[in-house]
């Protein structure tokens, strides 16, 4: 036992070093590898080409989520290119013996929703996936980060990765947020503060009373967007909330092994006096419901604010970035955010498609009607199990009665690889995580918000402050 106080990141890292080459590069062991259809086909090809086999078949769990249709699935996937990619995942998993939840399995869903839901993500694990939002799983006190396809192949073949230790950044959200302010608003406000490159090279630990008060769903929302702050990994200490969530899940340990696991998990927090390379403190009371106005998640403001004016910015590179963003978004400087009318609503994605997100949106929508100018309001549950739970609570009816569409689980309009997308110039209130140009469809304009804020915008037809929305 080392006497030096360690951060949560240090503890998980130390437990996973297989070999330290001495020059900073370590071989670290990967406990869980999640696989989806978009970033894996070339990795499986690589295995075949070199005559290699997966090192540990049981460590892998696969699901198709990006390309799947969110409408009736009885007829399969009509887009032939999407179908080829999903078929490739099916046949690769079958060939190598990897567990896959296929499209019509009720456990199917977005990879970052089903990992935790199945208990396949557990505290203290290293979790990787060929997807940048793997940071989501850090909500469990796991070291989780996204990798590229070559690394997917490396993990498949060796169960390890060559990695260098990150620096650590602690973001403390002090006190409690006010009513109507959610996990999404917390993380958007954090990104607004540190910038999209603020966390580059760091593993971020989110801490403080406001983080501890979040449910696991809320914590996943926060860690999901760590990557939008530039950090490959976000982490939150394990506490009773974490342990309660894991209990009884299919992949979670049982009986005596469970007790041993819990005893270990309770040590998964940063020690008093642990030293972080950097620290940021934010007052929870200062956080208001957030809306992004530009083409980068750091371009974010409280809903009560107005679109910024590039003319007031001194730095030339920054000013031209703002001008490009406003031109793309079709917005005027100084226009109040609440005056921005929307064309579509998207409630879903690995950021905000869990049961609590759907409950929050439904509570805003209940008994109301979608505004006439809103062409489409999509609600896409994160998994088949979330969908079933929501239906058992009657949430689907609340949405459909209000004119919102209730769909099958998948990534959907988060990145528009399936049929759900924005048309050029269309403006969307979206609960997803990226507002890059073209992200939700070429020429589409994305404003990132919380589920409650997206729902309220769908009813009002423009952004509104959910705190005063009745």
């Amino acid at each position: 036992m080392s006497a030096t106080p360690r951060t949560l990141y240090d503890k998980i890292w130390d437990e996973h070093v297989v070999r330290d080459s001495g020059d900073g590069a370590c071989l670290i062991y990967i406990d869980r590898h999640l696989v989806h259809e978009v970033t894996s086909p070339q990795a499986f090809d690589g295995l075949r080409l070199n005559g290699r086999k997966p090192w540990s078949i049981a460590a892998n769990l696969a699901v198709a989520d990006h390309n799947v249709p969110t409408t009736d699935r009885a007829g399969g996937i009509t887009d032939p290119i999407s179908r080829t990619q999903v078929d490739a995942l099916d046949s690769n998993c079958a060939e190598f013996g990897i567990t896959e939840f296929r499209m019509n399995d009720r456990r199917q869903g977005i990879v970052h929703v089903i990992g935790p839901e199945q208990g396949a993500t557990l505290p203290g694990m290293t979790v990787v996936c060929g997807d940048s939002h793997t940071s989501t799983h850090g909500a469990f006190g796991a070291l989780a980060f996204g990798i590229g396809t070559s690394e997917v192949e490396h993990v498949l073949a060796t169960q390890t990765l060559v990695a260098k230790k990150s620096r650590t950044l602690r973001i403390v959200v002090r006190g409690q947020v006010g009513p109507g302010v959610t996990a999404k608003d917390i993380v958007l406000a954090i990104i607004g503060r540190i910038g999209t490159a603020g966390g580059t090279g760091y593993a971020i630990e989110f801490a403080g009373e406001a983080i501890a008060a979040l449910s696991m769903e809320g914590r996943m929302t926060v860690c999901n967007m760590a990557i939008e702050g530039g950090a490959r990994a976000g982490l939150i200490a394990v506490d009773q909330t974490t342990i309660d969530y894991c209990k009884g899940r299919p992949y979670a340990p049982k009986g005596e092994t469970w007790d041993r696991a819990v005893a270990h998990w309770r040590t998964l927090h940063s020690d008093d006096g642990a030293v972080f390379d950097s620290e940021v403190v934010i007052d929870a009371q200062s956080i208001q419901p957030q809306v992004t106005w530009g083409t980068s998640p750091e371009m974010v403001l409280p809903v009560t604010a107005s679109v910024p004016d590039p003319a007031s910015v001194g730095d030339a590179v920054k000013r031209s970035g703002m001008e490009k963003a406003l031109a793309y978004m079709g917005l005027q400087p100084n226009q109040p955010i609440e005056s921005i009318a929307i064309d579509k609503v998207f409630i879903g994605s690995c950021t905000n498609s869990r049961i609590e997100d759907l409950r929050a949106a439904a509570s805003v929508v209940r008994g109301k009607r979608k505004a006439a100018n809103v062409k489409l309001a999509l609600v896409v549950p994160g998994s088949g199990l979330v969908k079933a739970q929501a239906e058992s609570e009657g949430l689907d009816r609340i949405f459909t009665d209000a004119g919102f569409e209730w769909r099958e689980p998948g990534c959907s309009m988060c990145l528009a690889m399936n049929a759900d997308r924005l048309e050029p110039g269309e403006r969307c209130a979206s609960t997803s995580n990226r507002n890059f140009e073209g992200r939700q469809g070429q020429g589409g304009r994305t404003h990132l918000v919380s589920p409650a804020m997206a729902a309220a915008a769908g009813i009002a037809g423009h952004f509104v402050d959910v705190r005063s929305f009745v």
Partner: protein
Amino acid sequence: MRAFTTLTAKVAPLDRPNVDTDAIIPKQYLKSIKRTGFGQFLFDDWRYLDAGDLDIPVASRRPNPDFVLNQPAYRDAQILLSRENFGCGSSREHAVWALDDFGFRAVIASSFADIFYNNSFKTGFLPVALTADVIETLFRELAANPGYTLTIDLPAQRVITPGGLAHAFDIDAFRKDCLIRGLDEIGLTLQHADAIRAYEARRREQAPWLFTNPV
């Protein structure tokens, strides 16, 4: 993996910060299950005036004449010059494959997103980070000198301007070595297979719950 040692090549400017992976290669092309052929779709939304897809022949599309890579002067550039936080966004290695397939061998920028940076090396593609001041100077020199070239000397970790000025850059030893020798990382790791097995045996004792999957 292809090796990288030194390169002297023309430079193309992409003068914006936060060039994200959705811009480098839009999602519709990620449906390809191959590793090649992405170069024709590099920066697709900026490069073409109409929308593209995997099954739309590029020859039938309308290039945007204003976009820098459509200008003949830069068509054979092998070095891309850009600003901070290059490659932010998703984990798609397709972004590197697209740059590489188009003909680029390196990107010089003031900073990179972690995953993009990491992915680059797997294709023998070199991301070089220089300070914002140096980047600013390079943009200025590039604008003033048609056919501007730079030399990247990886063994010496330097970027050398036509005027003979050398700017040092950092890279970690392991990556540099793999790149110079063109080594296969999986093959290297499998040389430590015994260490991995020994680690696993120990972990099965210490943390058996990591190995209990439902049947």
